[in-house]
């Protein structure tokens, strides 16, 4: 500990006199991995930007930070440039924004080598290719000539890591490096970070305690800009000293814990039969949803999980009639629903409501909260008196944890979490039968998410609300949903009750998804990582769509696409499912 490579002492960052980081002191030893965790707004990213010298001019920075004896704070830009890439480097959250779309990948790497005098000419080209190969990019020769938009998100993040490590820095800062990625790709990137940073100290910034538990020796916990706890990861997880740490650990999903759920009724509210959705793209048809059947019961929550390109959003949008399905039948209480929302009867329209992923985008910036929440009432209960209308609005707002003072606000005066709760209040104000949530909790931090989850559960217990719940967060799925539907390239690969699916997943893809979830336990064993990425839905593989990535694929899987069939208590689309059940 005495020979720390990074020493940060009383770092304070303030805007307009308000501190966002307050007296932060910590050290990072050479080749050590340290996790910096906290909720959004806790000052994690600000700390990283301060160390890199990338804060805007409006930030007031005090305190000191030294990297191997070199001061990092208050240096001239030119002096910092000499340290960047060679001594300290950073990987940003969203690789699609962090790479220059106008420059070839190889050129972006070569520029670093040339500017820092590490290599030039043919040597630089060689080194760039080596760097790309070292982060597991297939066919580096070709990728070096590609532009970023020609690469997948995971591949782009690999390139970012290659760029950060190409100058062989002493310290690598990774700011939420996997947050923008799918869960199996996240696991790949984390494994890659572990592997490539052998000579480099790592400061890993994340909101995900599972990531820290699996990859960091020590951890620091921030709350509102203050360091509330630090220590070896195993010790902190075993015996958290601060209440906030304890709360964070408690809020982290535990997939092994069976949840207490209300019992759904037998009555089938919504049935989907052979739903197909496709789009025109680049002259051919993209089959986003390829024949989905489901019956949603009153009071039941069905989770839809799967990575990008699985068609889960298209499926629920087709259910709501926002995107017309090409084929299939949709029935609500036995009545067939039109595929186009505008053709549906007013009475059924109030029964199906949705909460969108982007909280601010789902609120009209020109309307006050009161009018936003009341709008559905204006349509469906026009006779309502002013006081009744206001009472209903306030009731709903209070139900989602917002008091009456919010009614006069405009959306831009709300935080992301508040905006999402307003959107939920709007969706619930008509007391619908079915609520569709498309990543509705993704933008919310742990404590707020907990609260909103409880709201949904309460409403469900009281009114028999049925919920279609899209989420990439399997922890939330585990605590909220009665059944889980796993999609891959537009098809259901597995559908089972919560307990059955989480305790004995049958489809190899489901197992890979569960394995990829970072477990908030430093002592847990890390399962092997699923390779490859989701293929383009424009050209899905023949046979079982999953076979190119499947560790258990046999020759038959390449030839035949399995249909959904009952194996044990599970509906699963895998030729070898019975073998797996027998082994389990």
């Amino acid at each position: 500990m005495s020979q720390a490579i990074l020493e940060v002492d009383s770092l304070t960052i303030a805007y307009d006199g308000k501190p966002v980081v307050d007296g932060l002191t910590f050290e990072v030893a050479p080749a050590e991995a340290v996790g910096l965790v906290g909720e959004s707004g806790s000052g994690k990213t600000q700390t990283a930007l301060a160390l890199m010298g990338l804060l805007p001019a409006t930030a007031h920075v005090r305190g000191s930070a030294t990297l191997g004896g070199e001061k990092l704070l208050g240096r001239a830009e030119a002096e910092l440039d000499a340290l960047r890439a060679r001594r300290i480097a950073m990987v940003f959250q969203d690789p699609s924004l962090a790479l220059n779309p106008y420059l070839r990948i190889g050129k972006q790497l070569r520029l670093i080598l040339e500017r820092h005098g590490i290599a030039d000419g043919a040597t630089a080209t060689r080194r760039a290719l080596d760097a790309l190969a070292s982060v597991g990019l297939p066919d580096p020769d070709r990728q070096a000539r590609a532009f970023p938009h020609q690469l997948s998100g995971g591949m782009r993040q690999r390139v970012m890591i290659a760029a950060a490590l190409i100058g062989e820095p002493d310290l690598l800062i990774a700011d939420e490096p996997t947050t923008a990625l799918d869960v199996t790709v996240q696991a790949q990137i984390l494994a890659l970070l572990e592997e490539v940073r052998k000579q480099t100290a790592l400061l890993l910034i994340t909101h995900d305690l599972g990531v820290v538990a699996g990859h960091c020796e020590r951890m620091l916990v921030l709350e509102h800009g203050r360091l509330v706890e630090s220590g070896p990861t195993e010790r902190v997880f075993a015996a958290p000293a601060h209440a906030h740490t304890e709360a964070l650990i408690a809020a982290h999903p535990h997939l092994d814990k069976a949840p207490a759920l209300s019992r759904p009724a037998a009555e089938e509210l919504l049935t989907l039969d052979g739903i197909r959705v496709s789009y025109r793209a680049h002259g051919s048809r993209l089959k986003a949803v390829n024949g989905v059947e489901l019956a949603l019961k009153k009071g039941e929550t069905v989770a839809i999980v799967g990575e990008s390109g699985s068609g889960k959003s298209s499926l629920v949008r087709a259910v709501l009639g926002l995107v017309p399905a090409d084929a299939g039948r949709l029935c609500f209480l036995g009545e067939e629903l039109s595929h186009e929302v505008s053709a549906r009867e007013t009475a059924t329209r109030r029964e199906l409501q949705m909460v969108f992923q982007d909280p601010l985008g789902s609120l009209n910036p020109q309307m006050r909260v009161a009018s936003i929440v009341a709008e559905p009432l204006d349509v469906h209960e026009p006779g309502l008196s002013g006081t009744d209308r206001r009472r209903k609005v306030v009731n709903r707002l209070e139900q989602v944890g917002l008091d009456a003072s919010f009614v006069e606000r405009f959306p831009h005066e709300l935080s992301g979490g508040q905006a999402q709760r307003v959107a939920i209040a709007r969706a619930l104000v008509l007391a619908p039968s079915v609520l569709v949530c498309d990543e509705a909790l993704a933008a919310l931090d742990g404590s707020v998410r907990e609260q909103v989850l409880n709201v949904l559960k309460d409403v469900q217990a009281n009114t028999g609300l049925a919920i279609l719940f899209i989420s990439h967060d399997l922890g939330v799925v585990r605590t909220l949903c009665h059944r889980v539907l796993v999609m891959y390239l537009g098809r259901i690969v597995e559908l089972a009750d919560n307990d059955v699916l989480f305790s004995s997943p049958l489809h190899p893809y489901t197992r890979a998804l569960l394995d990829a979830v970072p477990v908030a336990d430093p002592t847990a064993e890390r399962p092997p990582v699923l390779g490859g990425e989701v293929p383009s839905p424009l050209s899905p593989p023949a046979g079982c769509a999953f076979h190119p990535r499947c560790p258990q694929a046999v020759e038959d899987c390449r030839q035949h696409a399995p249909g959904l069939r009952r194996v044990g208590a599970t509906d699963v689309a895998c030729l070898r499912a019975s073998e797996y059940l027998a082994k389990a």
Partner: protein
Amino acid sequence: MGAVPTLLLVIVLAFFLVHSVPGGPFDSERVLPPEIEQVLLERYDLDDPVPVQLAKYLGNLLKGDFGPSYRSTLNVNQIIAQRFPASLAIGGLAMTLALAAGLMLGTWAALRHNSRLDRVVTGLAMTGISIPIFVVAPALVLIFAVYLNWLPAGWTVSPGPAKYVLPVVALALPQIAYITRLTRASMIDVLQSGYVRTARAQGLGTAAIVRHHALKPALLPVVSYLGPAIAGILTGSVVIESVFGIPGLGEGFVTAAFNRDYLQVMGIVVLYAALVVLLNLLADVLYGLLDPRVRYE
């Protein structure tokens, strides 16, 4: 793409406009004896139905023949050949000056965003956009030719290159102002982008970041502006040529319009439309070269 239909549309529109005039080109001043008028009409194909005239005109255009002038012994090709060089020289120089100065000033201001220099450049650019060219040009003459007597005001009287200075500067000023604003705004956008932040984190330094990372994307709006810019320069040249007495195409256009010399008017409109269309085409090509996402669509 779309260049040929646009050009064709311009020609047809102009042609029908010209031929919908109440009264032909020969009945303005004095009444001609009917037999002479008939000879004139036949000579200029004016006795054919309008669609036939259009077909003939288009056929001649394809052969590069703009037709005869109603007013001059020269044909329109000769008039254009005579007047184009001066317009081309002034317009070309003004365009070059506008691009060079606009790009430099815009980048400079963007790099010092929110500084005093930035505010001065922004203010000047706003002023440059706001002062009409027909106020700028005489004002420049008044100051630099009449009061200070540094530069010549007339075109024909002075043989040296000094005569280019005032017309070119006056013609370029509004475009400099516009391109400065465009460049500044897009450069500020680009400099705040995630990939420039990455480049800063890689320690590339401002010069290399601007040169390698920022210039290309920041240029895109300016490239899109090439077509409108040439249109602005052509419009401005009408004023400039009349203020400085330059015998160019702009001046020729106004004179011909007043004289109802329709084939000359047509000729100049077609030429100008072709220039604008050409620049738009060039802009599309450049855009594709700069933006890989367009190229690989």
